[in-house]
């Protein structure tokens, strides 16, 4: 990039290369690239390698990446290994944070306001929904916090998140997934459908799931 286009690569470029190599299955090449980077790899890069190694089932690389992640970025170690209970929030600080969130997201995503308003009206329903991350579906030997983190970014959730920020309110979203949807994503998407008031249709490799008002057409049997 520098020689041909006069662009000095930043960390995001290095991260992009790692992502591309890793997703196409070239984990060794990705590791080699990281090892030969002219700058010190950041925590994001090692985190990407952790995800990619889990994706492709490379346990050795996963262990190494986690170790490097902890050593290069001590703050990650605290998050992963020393979970701190969330402080109890008071009404005034919560309102301030909510306002900040609304302000922040309204600038980025024009449709967020409608969704958030829907959410406020569904507070009671959310409490009744009973969602908690079901880490049974994380089939890795990692601690509880890491398992919860691993569940958050499954491909169907990313697709839905993108759909929510890219389409008007009440638009039906249709997602196709190549594998069987896991139980935790199934539960989470049910609650999301209730919050946003949209029908979320997921077609996995077995069947269709129509999520609407917190209920799925499969009756939680798939």
């Amino acid at each position, binding site marked *: 990039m520098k020689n041909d286009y006069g662009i000095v690569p930043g960390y995001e470029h290095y*991260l*992009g290369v790692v*992502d591309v190599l890793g*997703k196409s*299955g070239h984990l060794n090449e990705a590791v080699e690239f990281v090892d030969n980077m002219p700058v010190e790899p950041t925590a994001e890069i090692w985190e*990407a390698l952790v*995800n*990619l190694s889990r*994706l*492709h*089932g*490379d346990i050795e690389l996963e262990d190494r990446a986690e170790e490097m992640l902890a050593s290069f970025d001590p703050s990650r170690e605290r998050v992963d290994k020393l979970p701190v209970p*969330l402080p109890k*929030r008071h009404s005034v600080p919560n309102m301030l944070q909510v306002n900040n*969130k609304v302000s922040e*997201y309204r600038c*980025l995503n024009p449709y967020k306001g409608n969704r958030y308003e829907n*959410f406020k009206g569904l*507070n009671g329903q*959310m*409490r009744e929904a009973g*969602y908690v991350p079901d880490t*049974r579906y994380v*089939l*890795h*030997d990692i601690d509880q916090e890491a398992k919860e983190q691993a569940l*958050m*970014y499954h*491909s*169907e*959730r*990313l*697709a839905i*998140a*993108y*759909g*929510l*920020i*890219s389409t008007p309110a009440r638009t039906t*979203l*249709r*997602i*196709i*997934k*190549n*594998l069987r949807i896991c139980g935790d994503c199934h539960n*989470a998407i049910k*609650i*999301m459908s209730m919050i946003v008031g949209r029908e979320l249709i997921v*077609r996995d490799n*077995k*069947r*269709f*799931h*129509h999520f609407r008002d917190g209920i799925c*057409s*499969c*009756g939680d*049997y*798939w």
Partner: protein
Amino acid sequence: MGVCSNLNQPWNSIHPTVTLFRYCKTQADINQIHARIITTGLIRSSLLTTKLIISFTSSQHTPLIKFARYVLNYRNDGDPFLWNLVIKCFSHGEEPIEAVVLFCLMLEKGVFVDKFSFSLVLKACSRLQLVNEGVQIHGLLRKFEFGCDLVLQNCLICMYCKCGCVELGRRVFDEMIVRDSVSFNSMIDGYVKSGKIGLGRDLFDSMPVELRNLITWNCMISGYGDRFESAWELFREMPERDLISWNLMLDCCAKCGEMEVANDLFNKMPKRDVISWANMIDGYGRLGCVDIARGLFDDMGERDVVSYNVMMAGYVQNGHCKEALELFHVMLRERKFYPDHTTFVITLSAIAQLGNIDEGIFVHRYLEENNFMVEGKLGVSLINMYAKCGSIEIAMHVFEIIKEKNADHWNAMIGGLAVHGLGEIAFDLFIEMERLCVQPDDITFIGVLNACGHAGMVKEGIICFEIMRRIHKLEPKLQHYGCMVDILGRAGHIEEAARFIQDMPIEPNDVVWRTLLSACKIYENLSIGEDVAKYLIRRDPHNSGSYVLLSNIYASLSMWDCVRNVRTIMKERELEKIPGCSWIEIEGAPHEFLVGDRLHPQAKEIYSSLDMWHNIIRDVMF
């Protein structure tokens, strides 16, 4: 067209009317002629009606032919020539049944029936596959002492073969004292079309060489459509070839994957047509060489709808559904020719695989605006498309408005309901199908069993399986057994599912075993799952699915050492787990995400959004 009196002719003269016959094309034109001959009384004129019938039966316009038939009723002289003219129009036209009706009217009115009449009505019976009527006509012509007429015997052979009764055709053939090329060709064609290629070849070999003609050779080659060596042998032995011969050989090469030979033939062909190009495109498409196929398509001087269809089909068969859809839109934009039913079937299949509901709705609207009937395959494709695009309600609507449903429509609907988890509705539909005496087939039961499996309807699934065997006498295939294993496994009846497999009368394949393994994974059944997984790995050491499922069973039981062992073996054997991938289409553009994906241009916003959602949920919960 204006009809008026000519002052130089008497008011009831036929001349002004006759001179205008050649200008008639539409119903409006006919109405004027009709009015004139009624008011002038010329409807009773034998001379005028003869000229009218002769003129109109030589036309290609349907209203004129129907009017000729109408005028025939006014004649009392029973001229068989005129009757035959009208019958011929129908037997060769769009409504061959009318030829049968007219033949009956001839008999009823006592009009003399000659051998031409018989030949024409037999052709109509052939086209309509009316074997019962054909048999009656066969008996009648014997009574008329036409039983030994060569032309009529040939017609009988053709009729019986077209109706699927090649044995009866062979009896006629064997009784013939004199046979000609048409006799042999019709019989060989009958054998070829009914799949009895060996009998066809025997007849071909016994045929006098002097009677063989191009039709004979072409017919035989077409019968070897999936046997390259046999077709090639015949092709090389042909004393002469025509364009059809070359195209048939190309078609055989395409079906058999012999595209190098096809390419050589294509380059040597003295003349090519759109069929030649279509065969080449089809052949390369079948081999997965869509780029070569597309190159040929682009090189075509003149294209037709068939060439578009084969190119689109090649794209769809190789997973290039988006390209198929693009080609469909090119066809619409160019407007050189219009899509036919096959085009829409292919297009809807592509849309179904893409899951693009907006495109599906566009196509459906196009069909409605252009008066395409959704009966038949189009209806099946529409139902299937809507079901696979997630709109089961619209699929149900399409199904309901189809007036004449066949088994395929029911199958598509039941299958769609199955993957949408609407097992009870699917089961009810199956019962309705039974009530209406629509004969179910293998696919019907695969759909119903799948529906039962997805809905946890174990009892109903067993009932359907037994109905299939005992009532409909359908021998269960591997897929049916696999469905039963799935029904039992999903419901947690692991031991019963394993026992079911052991009792299967046919050898279970990997799919059946993997179905059981998946159930073991869901219900964390290690004792059965471990054995099944190891068995599958021994059978196919390179299928990563078995390893992943076994690893997941170990992981669900926190047997981490076993997990590591399996993953290590996978790595040693260079096997990779298929990563989770999801697609969503926004404003016509598909967006793909892998687990933990950060490559999307809006990755930051996406992750922020997800984090926000998770925080909202956590805040609410805690």
